[in-house]
């Protein structure tokens, strides 16, 4: 593993945060509690932490963009080039932005104005802060767009954000941030919303530009892999405090604080789990020649539909986990929804516990629904907010004619099985955290004693530590109930940790299929290799604080 090690102690400090505290307006709760950090010229300082740790608030405080009326700075200073930003007037601060500090955000789709051409959005920065003529402006914009390696620059200049890919949009954001060559670039989770291959490109772009301009970068992320790739120094945040600050290598090798250790230990390893013996049990889910085309019928004009999945063949046996891995748009969720019959497959067979369900009418399907259940990605939307947990849990069994007392008893059993107290049953979803809700969703699924459990990105929205717990829970449940799991994920690390077998999908088709160990350690297909190579920090074994042995 090659870490960034340049000695920057001689480089001038660009940003110096001293004892910065931020609180909720009108309340005493501290969102940031006296944090201090420095960023030097040419340095990439990573701010790491789980959601709610205060890392984004820090970046917004530096930009002076804390939401008015809800958050306010209560103490400390933010010094940029010797000026305390907190003492500037709003119009002075406005001049600092983009010229001295620039920022890129997590969601390049939402961070760009959807109704303005991207070229104009970049040019707007120049028009606001410089006296350049329109022609010069445009030339400069085209130049910076070249620098961020955008293709067909004149065409993209005239494009709207929705006409560009995620990676291109993030490049536009970077171009916009760097067009005035600011001293400091704040990157707030700039690659989180991107596919792993795109992420790798963007990370290297940022590194390249940083090197060329000597920009100081404050890089905010939750992803230890990314940290390992980009950081010079790392600041670990928890509950609004910085708990540990260290150069990247020493932090990863020798974390001093417990929290850092836990955080690192929770990062799933890319090394596949130990191989479980091939089971001889019957196949409970079998998909043959499945194909799904969306749309394709208009009233007046027959339009071609979108081919979302084709030639899908696989099977899962009792007690084992099959992972479907792929980037966004690969068709993995379509496969899951077809199997759940939330959408109807266009062609092919789906057998669950021996019953062909692909062609059954909705009504005829209902008696068989209990055999296959699903857990969704978003823990905040997967439970009816107006129902108690008991109501959500007993809904299924009641549908199959179980008496209420009996199903309530089972609900008590299941809620304990997923590690929540019994009295949770009388509460409402909003009283639970995301991880807890995901446990409840799992409990609801296993209330039905299904043969197959489909987990559609079931841990993607969770912080790593919670993610690890939920993954463990799924494993335990599989152990106890022998359920087959179809695990849909974009995250190779997660797949490596939970799957016995893996399917890699691209453009709606399966490109590689086999035991997890084989596919992830020795990928045969070019695309699988790309995926694995792009995984940040893939040579580091975070949980054991050392290089991967196999690397």
């Amino acid at each position: 593993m090659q870490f960034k090690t340049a000695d920057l102690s001689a480089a001038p400090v660009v940003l110096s945060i001293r004892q910065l505290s931020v609180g909720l307006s009108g309340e005493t709760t501290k969102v940031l509690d006296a944090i201090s950090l420095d960023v030097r010229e040419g340095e990439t300082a990573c701010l790491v932490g789980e959601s709610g740790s205060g890392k984004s608030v820090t970046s917004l405080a530096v930009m002076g963009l804390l939401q008015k009326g809800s958050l306010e700075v209560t103490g400390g200073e933010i010094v940029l080039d010797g000026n305390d930003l907190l003492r500037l007037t709003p119009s002075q601060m406005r001049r600092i932005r983009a010229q001295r500090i620039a920022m890129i955000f997590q969601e390049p789709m939402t961070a760009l104005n959807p109704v303005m051409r991207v070229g104009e959005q970049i040019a707007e920065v120049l028009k606001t802060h410089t006296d350049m003529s329109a022609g010069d402006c445009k030339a400069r914009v085209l130049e910076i767009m070249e620098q961020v390696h955008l293709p067909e620059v004149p065409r993209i200049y005239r494009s709207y954000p929705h006409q560009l890919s995620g990676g291109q949009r993030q490049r536009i954001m970077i171009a916009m941030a760097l067009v005035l060559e600011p001293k400091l670039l704040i990157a707030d989770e700039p690659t989180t919303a991107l596919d792993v291959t795109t992420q790798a490109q963007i990370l290297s772009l940022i590194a390249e530009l940083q090197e060329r301009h000597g920009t100081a970068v404050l890089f905010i992320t939750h992803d230890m892999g990314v940290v390992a790739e980009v950081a010079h120094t790392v600041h670990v945040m928890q509950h609004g405090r910085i708990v540990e600050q260290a150069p990247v290598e020493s932090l990863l090798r020798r974390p001093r604080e417990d929290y850092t250790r836990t955080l690192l230990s929770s990062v799933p390893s890319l090394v596949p789990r130990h191989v479980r013996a091939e089971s001889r049990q019957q196949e409970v889910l079998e998909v043959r020649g499945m194909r799904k085309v969306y749309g394709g019928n208009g009233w007046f004009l027959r339009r071609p539909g979108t081919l979302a999945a084709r030639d899908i063949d696989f099977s899962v046996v009792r007690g084992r986990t099959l992972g479907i891995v792929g980037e966004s748009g690969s068709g993995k969720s379509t496969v899951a929804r077809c199997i759940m019959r939330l959408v109807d497959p266009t062609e092919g067979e789906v057998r669950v516990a021996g019953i062909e369900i692909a062609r059954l009418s909705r009504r005829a399907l209902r008696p068989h629904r209990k055999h296959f259940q699903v857990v969704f990605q978003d823990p905040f939307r997967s439970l009816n907010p107006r129902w108690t947990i008991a109501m959500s849990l007993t809904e299924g069994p009641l549908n199959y004619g179980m008496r209420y007392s009996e199903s309530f008893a089972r609900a008590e059993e299941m809620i304990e099985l997923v590690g929540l107290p019994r009295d949770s049953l009388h509460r409402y979803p909003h009283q639970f955290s995301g991880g807890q809700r995901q446990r409840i969703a799992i409990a609801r699924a296993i209330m039905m004693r299904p043969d197959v459990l489909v987990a559609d990105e079931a841990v993607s929205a969770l912080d790593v530590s919670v993610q690890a717990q939920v993954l463990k829970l799924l494993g335990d449940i599989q152990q106890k109930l022998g359920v087959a799991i179809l695990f849909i994920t974009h995250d190779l690390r997660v797949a490596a940790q939970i799957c016995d077998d893996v399917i890699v999908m691209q453009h709606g088709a399966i490109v590689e299929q086999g035991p997890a160990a084989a596919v992830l350690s020795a990928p045969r297909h070019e695309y699988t290799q790309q995926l694995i190579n792009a995984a940040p920090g893939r040579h580091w074994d975070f949980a054991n604080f050392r290089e991967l042995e196999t690397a």
Partner: protein
Amino acid sequence: MAHATQPASAMQALLGALSLPRRWRIGAGPIIAAVVLLVIVLSALLAPLYVPYDPMQMNSLNRLQPATADHLLGTDQYGRDLFSRIMIGGRVSLLIGVGAAVFSVLVGLLIGLVSGFFRIADAIIMRIMDSLMAIPAILLAIALVALNGPSVWSVIVAITIPEVPRVVRLVRSVVLGAREEPYVEAAIALGSGMFGILWKHLMPNTLPALIVQGTYICASAILTEALLSFLGAGVSTEIPTWGNIMAEGRTYFQVNPGLIFWTGAVLSLCILSINLLGDTARDMLDPRLKKREA
């Protein structure tokens, strides 16, 4: 509340729908509005018990009097006591408001649920609703009152019919949105039938929006009643309503401005309160807004 006694029932769904975050931030405005509305409603309901005059009793010697000790707010062109008429008139005006709100919400809910869930019905229903929406409500209402005669019920019906399409659209959009929610998909996976999902998951979802919409319809119905009366297509003047008191009084606006002013003030105050409460309800019930404030 929902202990192991009853299976998920519509009642629970209803209660669940109303179980809101505990930290309601209610300013002074809505509380004042609630009090004002309560006073107006109670004084209208109890009016027969305390009004000093029979609101229909004419007295040609006492026409268009300004406010005096005898006649708290003066008299109208037939010498009838304005105070008594406004108080009694509130009963019918409020009845029209509440009636139109209840009917349009019920009818709209029914049609909207069907429309949001069954695609074939949807196409036809929405064309009819589009057509109804295209006809200006006030003209439709005047024609309907002309059709049925100027009774209280026909005014309620005339106000309800143009409101229904809006409720249908609202319900339909909530249903269409909620259909895609993971918890509804989970319910499908759990083997719940269409009607079960419609009734237990989707219908409760529409309630907050409907409660809010209902308050707005109530307010606008009271206002529409006034406009209909103004245009000569309202409830017969034998039954006083805020609308027809003002409609009759408009001729005498300069002789006795109280006829319009006092009635208009009570009416506006009432509608203002209802609208404020509707806004408050929306702010509390609309999760989108809540998220923004968080």
